[in-house]
């Protein structure tokens, strides 16, 4: 049986933990709203861009298509771009992203492909390093900026495209969480390079569109932008997912701490009463002995 003092200290420490988790939850809730708004604001650009891509890609095909669209012709070396968060305290989010990435890696390795990792965000490093220490190509650090924006997406895309042009990999996949709700963030694997030809509705596919300078030149200009937009979208989704997951996790933690405090308080009161009773019994026994 723990002493009264010990119990009291324990209650105090759980209380201060609860304060922290509660504060973090409220911060996450406020940030989530902002992150969601940012993700929504970015949608029109991505939609327009893929619409234009669809209409262009259907016109340019075969050997004249740029390298980014048609690929290097082989699919031996795969690069997994894994987008993790920089901060913890967000429940199982990072574990789920890493799990999805590892599953994809295993699948590719089983098919006899080479897999390398390109990690964005701090929290994916340790768990992936544990299994694939020699396969990690690069860490991209986003922890020193407060809110990752287009500049970061730009920098990542430039780096990836450079590596692609040097022929360091054939296919790149993007692993990132898609924000469904504060309760659900699904890790997703999308092909990033070569750019998968968008399907379906080409905007104004029936009209004769004039191109300046030409279809291919525009497409060549457009494809890197498309990759950039994908990465930017992934960063925004990550931001929203992180805050959502964090909010839920911290809500749970706050509630658990509350339960624990209740339990400990009951235990504390019981021991206190027991101590009082023992004291009384001792006094009475002493008085009777006289």
């Amino acid at each position, binding site marked *: 049986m723990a002493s009264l003092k010990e119990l009291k200290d324990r209650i105090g420490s759980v209380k201060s933990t609860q304060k922290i988790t509660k504060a973090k939850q409220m911060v996450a809730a406020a940030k989530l709203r902002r992150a969601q708004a*940012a993700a929504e*604001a*970015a949608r*029109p*650009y*991505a939609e*327009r*861009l893929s619409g*234009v891509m669809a209409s*262009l890609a259907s016109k340019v095909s075969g050997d004249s298509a740029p390298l980014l669209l048609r690929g290097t012709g082989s699919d031996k070396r795969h690069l997994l771009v894994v987008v993790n968060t920089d901060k913890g305290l967000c429940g199982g989010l990072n574990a789920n992203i890493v799990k999805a990435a590892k599953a994809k890696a295993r699948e590719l390795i089983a098919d006899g492909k080479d897999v390398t990792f390109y990690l964005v965000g701090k929290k994916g490093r340790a768990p992936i390093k544990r299994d694939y220490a020699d396969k990690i190509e690069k860490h991209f650090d986003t922890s020193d900026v407060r809110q990752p*924006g*287009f500049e970061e*997406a730009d920098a990542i895309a430039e780096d990836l495209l450079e590596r692609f042009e040097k022929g360091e990999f054939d296919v790149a996949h993007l692993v990132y969480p898609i924000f469904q709700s504060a309760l659900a963030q699904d890790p997703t694997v999308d092909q990033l390079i070569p750019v998968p030809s968008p399907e379906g509705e080409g*905007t*104004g596919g029936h*009209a*004769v*569109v*004039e*191109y*300046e*300078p030409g279809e291919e*030149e*525009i497409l060549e*200009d*457009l494809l890197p*932008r498309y990759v*950039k*937009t994908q990465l*930017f979208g992934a960063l925004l989704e990550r931001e929203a997912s992180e805050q959502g997951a964090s909010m839920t996790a911290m809500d749970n933690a706050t509630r658990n701490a509350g339960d624990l405090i209740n339990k400990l308080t009951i235990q504390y009161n019981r021991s206190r009463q027991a101590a009082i009773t023992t004291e009384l019994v001792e006094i009475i026994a002493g008085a009777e002995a006289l």
Partner: protein
Amino acid sequence: MALHFELVTPAKLVRSEDVHMVVVPGAEGEFGVLEGHAPFMSTIRDGAVQVYKTEGAAPETIEVRGGFAEVGENGLTVLAEHVEG
């Protein structure tokens, strides 16, 4: 009837309005777009997009960097990576 003009960046939808004419700095020279322009697509160079709200009015200039312009049935859409001002 007027030209529907949209200016979009990755971060947000900057403009969405009906205007008289827009002059876009295309990669191969500036071009003006009026209502009913034929479908057209062009990359743009860094420069100023001039928006004429009404005929003969003084243009409003918006500096854009990197992107392209598309003219379709539903007007002119300029996708730019950066917009200043």
